[in-house]
Every structure is written in C-alpha cells, then in structure tokens.
C-alpha cells in the first residue's frame, strides 16, 4: 500500500508541476505579447507582408460577423460560407446589410465545385468580407473550395461561435515574420479555444484541409504557440463532453485516492484546486471576455495538453 501511495503522490506532483508550468508559459507569452504590441503599435505597415484569410461557416447573423471584421490589421480578409438554399433569408439580410454584390468566379456552377455565388461588398468599409454561397454539405470540402478565393498566404479556419482576440492577427504576423519561422506550416494554439493557422501552400501540398491534416504535417513544421488567438462566444452552451471528461477524472481520482488513504484524497482535492485557479489565472492573463464555468472546465481539460496529440476540429 505504501508503494501505491508513493506512486500516487509522485503522479500528483507531476500533474501539479505540469499545471504550474503551463500557467507560467501562458503568463510569459501574455507578457511578451503585451510588450511587442506596445512597441509595434506605431508602425502602420503589415509586418513582413504576412496576410491571413479567415474562413468561417455556419454563422448567419450580422452580430456574429461584425467582431470578425473588427481587426485593424491591414492584410486580412474574412470568408463566410453559407448555404443560400437552406438559409435564404439570412443570406439576403447579410447581402442587404453589407451592400454585397455578386461577383464572377471561374469555378464551374455545378456539384463538383458546389459554389453557387460569390459576393463582395461595394462598400469600401467592408472590402475584407467575402460571402460564398456554397451548397456543399461536407464542411472540409467547402473550406477547400473557399481557399481558391483566399487572397493571403495563411488560412485560419474558424469554428462557429468563435471570435478573434484583439490583435490576434498582429500576433500571428509577428510570429511568422521571424526568419526562423519561415518554414512553419501550422501554428496551433488552444489556450482559450482551439485555433489553427495553416500555410496555404502547405495545405495544398497535403491535398487540402481534412480532419487528419495535422498528422500529415511534419512535426518540425508545426509551431505550438502559447499565445491565445481566439475565444468562444457561446457562453450559454454547456459542452457535455468536456463536463463529462472533467467529472470522470475528478470522481475516478477521488475514488482511487480514497481507497489509498484519506490524506491522498485531500492531496488530490488540492491538486484540483490548483488546476481551477491556474485555469482562471490563464483566462485573466489574456483578458478573456468569457470566464464562465464552461471555459474554466475547458481550461482544466487543456491541462492535459502535454500528454495528448493535437487534433483539428472545425464542426
């Protein structure tokens, strides 16, 4: 029993160190970003000609599109994928609000491309917005079609109900402009919400965006960043798998610890306290607009980041 207790304490200590280390990493990244942002604020040019095209889908309201258009960075655009047949009234509303006009595209008007129409705004204020009426049901192939119309070299497929943090594009450009990062094909971060920044040519060479694209990119071409880029906006929506994951870890751990000894159970509880506080600390560091229980649970789940493989999920 003594050996089991010793192993249990060592495991808890490893978990506590990992949690604390991750908090320090994000704290350091947040401070570094704050420092560089202040310095680069006065320069009006896009850093190293880095441009980003954000591709998003399943957003139907102006309220959801507006925050994605608010970045002050010069070289970025937003491509919204919508199925005009299923969501006709929403598409009409967006067209009216942003003064969109149908533009040409050379892809065939059939099922292979899936593109029904492409819209850009006649109003200069909204020059960064592109709306693609696409009838494809598979979201990955719709995104791959949208890449054809993307103007810039880096692609950010964004999940619905996700928004960019202020200065997120500037952060990406600062990171990518460094000559040491010239061959990076993917920047991955899931500090507040999962976010992938793909290099366009990398995506094309790996035959487009697919659920297992990250596994196909060489590890040396992946940069795991501690800098938060996006956050979730659907704070009311409680994510059951995350809740189930956290609850099962908590209950299983308490059960095992209680079986070993009562002090072990208390030590386990203390580690959970550290995990919760570390999660809140990370959210505060990035001034996350959403500090709901759901986000805190997501943060706790993220503490296992050192031990799991990163995945690309868009739905």
């Amino acid at each position, binding site marked *: 029993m003594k050996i089991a*207790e*010793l192993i249990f*304490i060592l495991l808890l*200590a490893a978990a*506590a160190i990992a*949690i*604390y280390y991750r*908090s320090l990493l994000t704290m*350091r990244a947040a*401070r*570094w970003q704050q*420092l*560089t942002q*202040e*310095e*680069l*604020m*006065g*320069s*009006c*040019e896009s*850093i*190293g*000609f880095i*441009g980003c095209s954000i591709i998003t889908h399943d957003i139907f309201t102006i309220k959801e599109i507006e925050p994605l258009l608010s970045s002050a960075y010069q*070289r970025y655009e937003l491509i919204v994928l919508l199925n*005009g047949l299923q969501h*006709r009234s929403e598409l*009409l509303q967006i*067209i009216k609000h942003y003064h969109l*006009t*149908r*533009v*040409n*595209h*050379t*892809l065939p008007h059939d099922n292979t491309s899936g593109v*029904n*129409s*492409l819209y*850009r705004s006649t109003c200069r204020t909204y020059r960064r917005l*592109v709306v693609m*009426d696409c009838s494809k049901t598979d979201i990955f192939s719709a995104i791959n079609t949208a890449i*054809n*119309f993307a*103007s810039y*070299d880096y692609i950010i497929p964004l999940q619905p109900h996700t928004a960019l943090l202020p200065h997120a594009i500037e952060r990406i450009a*600062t990171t990518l*402009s*460094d*000559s040491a990062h010239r061959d990076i094909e993917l920047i991955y971060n899931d500090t507040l919400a999962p976010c992938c920044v793909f290099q366009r*040519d990398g995506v094309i060479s790996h035959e487009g965006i697919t659920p297992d694209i990250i596994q196909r990119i060489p590890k040396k071409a992946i940069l795991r960043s501690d800098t938060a880029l996006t956050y979730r906006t659907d704070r009311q929506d409680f994510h059951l798998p995350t809740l189930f994951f956290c609850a099962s870890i908590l209950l299983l751990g308490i059960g095992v610890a209680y079986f070993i000894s009562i*002090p072990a159970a208390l*030590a386990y509880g*203390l580690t959970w*306290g*550290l995990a919760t*506080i*570390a999660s809140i*600390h990370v959210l505060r560091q990035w001034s996350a607009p959403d500090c709901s229980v759901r986000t805190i649970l997501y943060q706790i789940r993220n503490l296992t980041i050192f031990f799991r493989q990163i995945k690309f999920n868009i739905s």
Partner: protein
Amino acid sequence: MSVLYILYVMVVGAMILHLTVVSHFKSSAHSALYKRYTANLIATLFNKNSTTTIITSSRHQRNTLIEAIHSLTTHTYDSQREVIKRVVKENNLQEHIFRLLRHASSLQKCRLLTLLSSINLENKTHISIIKKYLHCHNHNIRSHALITLIAAKPTELIPTISSLNFELQPTDTARIITLIRQGTLCVVIEPLLESNNRNLQMLALAIVRSFGIDIADKHLLQIVASSQCSTLVEDAIYTLTALKRPLKYRIIKERLAEASEQQRKKLCRHLSVEGYSIQSIRALLSSEECHDARLLITSYKRQLSQSQTP
C-alpha cells in the same frame, strides 16, 4: 509518508498563492499607482513651470514610474524631453534600471531595455553596457538593445545599424519606424537606399513602404538589379508593388526567374491583391503560375449578366 504529504501541501500551496494572491495584489496595487503617476506626469507636461515633483521611495514605485513614462512617450508625439529628463534624474531611474538589468531574465531584459528607450541615455558607461547587449545570443535582447541605442543616439543610426552582426527582422524595422513616427528619430532616406549594407537597405525599404515615398523608384530598381541578397530583391519588388509602380522592367522579370516557385506564386497572389491587372502579371510570370491570380482577379469583378439576389 506524512512528511511527503506536508511537503506536497506546502509546494502546491505556494503555487496557488503565487497564482492568486501575489499576482492579484501586484496587479491591483500596480494599476492604482500607475494611474496616479500617469496623471501627475500629464499635469507636469501640460504645465512646464509646475513645481510638482514626483518622488518615489521603493523599487516597485520606481518600476511603475518608468512604465508610466514609457507609456506616455509611446502614446505622444515629441513629448517634452526636458520635463521627463528632470523626473528621471530626480528619481535616479537610470541607475535603478541598470541595477535590475544585471540579474534579469531574458524577457525582463527586453522589457527593461524597452523602458530605457523612453529615457534619454547620456551616460557613456550606460551606452557601452547597452552596446554589449548587441552581441547577445538571444535575438530579442539584441533587437531591444538596438532600439534603445538608436533612441539614445538618433544621429548615429547609420553607424549603429551598419555595425550589426545580425540581420534585421521585419519586427525590428517596424520598431524603428515607430521611433520615427514618435519624432524620436529623423531619417534621410537616400543614404540608406544607396548604402551597400543589407540591414540599412532593408530599413530603407520598410520606411519607403510605410511612408509611401514615391521618389524612391530609381533606387528600388537599382537594388533589384544589383543586390546579391534574394530577401532584399524580394523586398524591393514588394516595395515597388506597395507604391503601385509598373513592373514591366526586364530586370524584374530576370530576377523573378531566379526565385523559387513558391516565392513566385506568393508574389502572383500579392500582385492581384494590390490591384495589378492579369495582363501585367502575365508579363512577369507564366500563365500556369497566373492561375491563382486569375481566379482572384476575376472574383473581384461584378457579373453584370446575373441578377443580384440569390
């Protein structure tokens, strides 16, 4: 076993304490003091003859005062240097930062060097210490030391940059442009463009782009024609596009032929975003390479034959 538990509780307790109480206390006390110092500095700047003095007594207060000075100088154009100098001297802030620099981590060093760039460094010993950081193995520290040095001696921009033994990154040039926009630095562009130093030319190209200096055409074409550095040639071509200049010159086509396929594709997309016609892109690149550009350029145009509603 109980010793292990006690040790574990103590260590985890210390971690929790650091993440909650210390961080929270630090940030709230810091922000209150920061606001007070900023307000006092603004009041002093508005009234130059004011006798109000800002006196700091602790290390934390000095740090906060330097941050307030830095924030003020970065957010204002050509601030009253004499007033800031007086506040710095009264509180012995230069010595304080140099004391901290000795034992700081790399991130802290960058922060302290940035703060030093807002303070007029005149002491030769201090400047020689900063010069030592230019040879540091960490690029971030080197870069911040360079900015501090340029801010301290703006007239020696050319010798400082030409003596560097590392290549300037786009973030470095952006920081120098920030200094120009703040009024700390005055630059004459011709000597930079005519120089044979790669770093000076990179800086010149960034300045030309940032301020839209359209008289630099001749120099840009000269760089494209004569430079051996591929990054510099690429940057010069991109600068020409930023100025919306025609690219029909033979020398540009020749240099593009030497570039990699990926670089040519990137330029092709860039040209279409910058508003170049498909004809002018075709004059530079092959029709296969123009595929992406054609797709993009076509999508910028309205199809008159179709109705507007879906």
